[in-house]
């Protein structure tokens, strides 16, 4: 038997919740929805476009009649729920019909707040909230009368803009001296006002309506200073209040709104509230993004998927007025404890303000150029330490000097400019794909165009193109790590930390995977996280969840052959070793032998069935796998150091060997490279490695998070140590913290850019005891990791499957 789920409200938050529930579990509920309005679910945010005539009502419909039918949802339109009998678990509607529920969602939204004003009960004094309000406005407008809009907030400006676009004289009254005072500081407010005046809107700031005069309909509006205008329409956009009438009638606990906890539960069991009608942690929200975040959490709760719960939202605003680029988020005003970074070009109409608190962005106001909005919002949400970016922050992401892609201003890019170098996708291809296929998320763009689907370095650019193409329709959300799921790395890691699992498939079940055995993206990731938690001794590393190179301990080449790289400790070899390698290369007729950038020898073109005997021969000569294929330690590159070099200050060769002996075999989220230079001339190129060690007269400098790949990133200086022991200590601590904290396939460079250098320093440098714990965990895991995979896979018989099965031609029988 399906449980009965009743949803009171047919708006955006209600329906988003229902949609989310259906994606998780189609069978669990029999769903009934009550809506007060006579429509299916439409996009309330688009009302201003409806008013300005830039969109039709059809354009704003989110869920059509057939959607309700296809999902067997009963919709009662024009039907108001009067109250809930919480004892008998029934809702009572207009005409006193009763409906029983097992679970109930209240999504009654909000009502426009109209301040007590003389004459506010006249006809054509309305709010700006529903399709009906828009219809009334459009029917009432007349060329010889002025329309008055009260309230200079987001909604008021959109209403005024929509009306002015119809060619009607429009006055906007706002009681403060600054437009959008909830979202903008006064500088941005002035720029905005100047821009909107071009559309013919007349602003009366620091003013209110004294009275509205008329018999039945509005005839005149009188302002505070006694001015009077002939008018037939007054639109109040003076805020909203949560619609809690029904909850009050039902004895559900309310304050400003219906009180809910982190799981959107009200004070009554089995009753949930969501959207503008609810109050979470003292906050009510009137914007769409928080409602969607709530919907996601509520749907999980209602389908028994483990969730961390809703933690409140950081809201951001974009004004939906064509030709006005405006964005704000967080605490945009600041106070005495905060700092501001400001860029103002009044002539060009560009204004950017970032409010900082302790080197983190807490508020953003952008006017005229909002191309970096999503980037700033990300820095804000993730609380990224921006101390190192400060000087360039205001110039946007492009100002950081992305070596891979040069300037990042997507607006300035032409359609034939290449965005994704791996898959050869141009800007125009992406824009066309977004428009013709109605793409909404980064994942969809990736799947459809392949842009960003390979190395991922252009994803930021792709996201910007998506944001610019979609405008307001774009909603950044944490995407699932692949199309099998809706959860991001953070949530997956938290789930694995908090529960016990035997294998990847149990994790899939717990997190409600859409596929039984995942895919080539999620399986290796989950396998990695389980390995981090349990180490090789408690968790059996699953070869079927490893990509080919990690599975067969060699690097696959374009023709299906492999390359074999034995470990050459610290890049130092001997005539005997070279002789052995040469003989083996000759014996197996290796077509190409090449020195690698990591100071070893690569034998390329080896057939899969040759791997086992070749490894055996190499093992017998004392070689182990160089793990040139691994998401783990690759090489420790060295310069000759003070053994030979006249500038050398330290024995970098021996140090390289020691570090490689210490760290070989370790697995990490992505490949890991180390280099040791014997002096600051840095011949080992240590400053583009994951860990770069540089010898100085008084000891060693440790640098981290460098990368020589697509996007060159120079290491950050981490710390300086005097002794070899300290150096080993920090290398172990850094590697362990990285493997535990980073996401799968996140190089140290990306990880440090995401979490901030300070975060890593704090974890390791601020508290010796904490660092000690990482060191111990590293040592513990190395006991089981430092086993030569070549020798092991021969011994366990794994290499048997490397042999092809050759069928004899049938003619010979």
């Amino acid at each position, binding site marked *: 038997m399906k449980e009965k789920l009743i949803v009171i409200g047919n708006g955006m938050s209600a329906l988003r919740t229902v949609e989310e529930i259906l994606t998780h579990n189609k069978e669990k509920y029999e769903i009934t929805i009550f809506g007060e309005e006579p429509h299916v679910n439409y996009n309330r945010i688009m009302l201003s476009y409806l008013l300005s005539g830039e969109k039709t009502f059809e354009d704003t419909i989110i869920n059509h009649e057939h959607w309700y039918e296809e999902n067997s949802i009963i919709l009662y339109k024009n039907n108001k729920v009067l109250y809930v009998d919480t004892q008998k678990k029934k809702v009572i509607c207009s005409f006193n019909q009763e409906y029983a529920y097992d679970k109930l969602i209240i999504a009654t939204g909000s009502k426009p707040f109209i301040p007590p004003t003389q004459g506010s009960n006249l006809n054509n004094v309305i709010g700006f909230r529903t399709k009906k309000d828009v219809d009334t406005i459009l029917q009432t407008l007349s060329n010889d009368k002025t329309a008055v809009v009260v309230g200079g907030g987001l909604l008021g400006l959109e209403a005024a803009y929509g009306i002015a676009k119809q060619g009607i004289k429009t006055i906007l009254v706002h009681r403060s001296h600054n437009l959008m005072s909830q979202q903008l500081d006064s500088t941005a407010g002035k720029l905005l006002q100047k821009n909107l005046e071009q559309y013919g809107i007349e602003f009366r700031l620091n003013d209110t309506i004294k009275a509205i005069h008329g018999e039945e309909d509005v005839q005149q509006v009188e302002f505070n200073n006694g001015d009077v205008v002939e008018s037939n329409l007054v639109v109040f956009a003076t805020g909203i209040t949560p619609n809690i009438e029904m909850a009050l009638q039902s004895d559900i606990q309310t304050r400003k709104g219906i009180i809910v906890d982190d799981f959107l539960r009200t004070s009554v069991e089995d009753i949930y509230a969501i959207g503008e009608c609810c109050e979470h942690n003292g906050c009510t929200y009137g914007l769409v993004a928080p409602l969607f975040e709530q919907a996601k959490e509520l749907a999980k709760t209602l389908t028994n998927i483990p969730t961390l719960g809703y933690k409140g939202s950081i809201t951001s605003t974009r004004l939906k007025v064509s030709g006005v680029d405006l964005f704000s988020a967080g605490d945009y005003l600041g106070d005495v404890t905060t700092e501001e970074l400001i860029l103002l070009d009044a002539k060009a109409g560009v204004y950017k303000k970032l409010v900082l608190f302790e080197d983190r962005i807490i508020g953003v106001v952008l006017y005229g150029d909002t191309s970096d909005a999503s980037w700033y919002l990300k820095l804000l949400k993730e609380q990224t330490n921006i101390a190192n970016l400060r000087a360039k922050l205001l110039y946007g992401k492009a100002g950081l000097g992305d070596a891979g892609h040069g300037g990042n201003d997507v607006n300035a890019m032409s359609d034939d400019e290449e965005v994704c170098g791996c898959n050869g996708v141009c800007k125009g291809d992406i824009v066309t794909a977004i428009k013709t296929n109605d793409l909404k998320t980064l994942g969809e763009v990736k*799947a*459809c*165009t*392949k842009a960003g*689907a*390979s190395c991922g370095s252009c994803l930021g650019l792709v996201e910007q193109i998506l944001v610019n193409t979609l405008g307001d329709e774009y909603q950044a959300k944490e995407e699932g790590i692949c199309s099998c799921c809706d959860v991001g790395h953070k949530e997956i890691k938290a789930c694995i930390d908090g529960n016990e699992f035997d294998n990847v498939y149990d994790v899939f079940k717990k997190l409600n995977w859409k*596929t*039984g*055995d*995942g*895919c*080539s993206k999620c*399986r*290796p990731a989950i396998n990695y996280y389980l390995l981090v938690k349990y180490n090789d001794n408690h968790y059996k590393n699953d*070869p*079927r*969840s490893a*990509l*080919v190179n990690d599975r*067969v301990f060699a690097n*696959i080449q*374009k023709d*299906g052959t492999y390359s074999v790289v034995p470990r050459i400790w610290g890049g130092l070899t001997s005539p005997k070793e070279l002789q052995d390698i040469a003989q083996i290369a000759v014996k197996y007729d290796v077509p190409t032998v090449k020195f690698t950038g990591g100071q070893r020898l690569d034998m390329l073109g080896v057939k*899969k069935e040759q791997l086992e005997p070749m490894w055996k021969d190499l093992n017998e000569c004392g070689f182990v796998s160089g793990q040139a294929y691994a998401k783990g330690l690759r090489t420790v590159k060295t310069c000759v150091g003070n053994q030979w070099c006249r500038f050398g200050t330290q024995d970098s060769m021996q140090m390289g060997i020691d570090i490689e002996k210490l760290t070989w075999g370790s697995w990490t989220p992505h490949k890991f490279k180390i280099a040791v230079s014997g002096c600051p001339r840095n011949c080992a190129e240590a400053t583009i490695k994951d860990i770069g060690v540089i010898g100085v007269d008084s000891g060693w400098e440790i640098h981290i998070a460098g990368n020589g790949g697509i996007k060159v990133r120079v290491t950050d200086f981490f710390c300086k140590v005097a002794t070899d022991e300290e150096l080993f200590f920090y290398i172990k601590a850094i590697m362990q913290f990285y493997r535990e904290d980073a996401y799968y396939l996140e190089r140290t460079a990306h990880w440090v850019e995401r979490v901030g250098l300070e975060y890593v320093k704090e974890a390791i440098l601020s508290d010796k005891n904490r660092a000690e714990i990482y060191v111990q965990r590293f040592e513990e895991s190395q006991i089981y990791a430092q086993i030569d995979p070549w020798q092991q896979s021969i011994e366990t018989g794994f290499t048997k*499957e490397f042999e*092809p*099965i*050759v*069928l004899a*031609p*049938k003619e010979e029988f």
Partner: protein
Amino acid sequence: MAWLEVTTVENIPLMGARKIVYKELEIAIFKTKEGELFAVHNACPHKKGKLSEGIVHDKMVTCPMHSWVIDLKSGEAQGSDCGCTKTYELKIENEMVYINL
């Protein structure tokens, strides 16, 4: 066309594959998580990647070269990728796998 004996079922690793060579022909035989067997031409329709080296999930394999996903039953590339690789008929008798070539 005739049925040729290949190997025993247990010799095909679960969620893995074996490469079969017959004259000039290279075929991959896969075993899914449910133990079902499929045979396809061992070359991705994209750039001839060895499908036998890919990750097996559901009744599909992801090519190790550029992550195209190939349906093992039909040989068709999935998603927005276009292409098809030849599939072969298999039968099992007394734990022995036969291929129709």
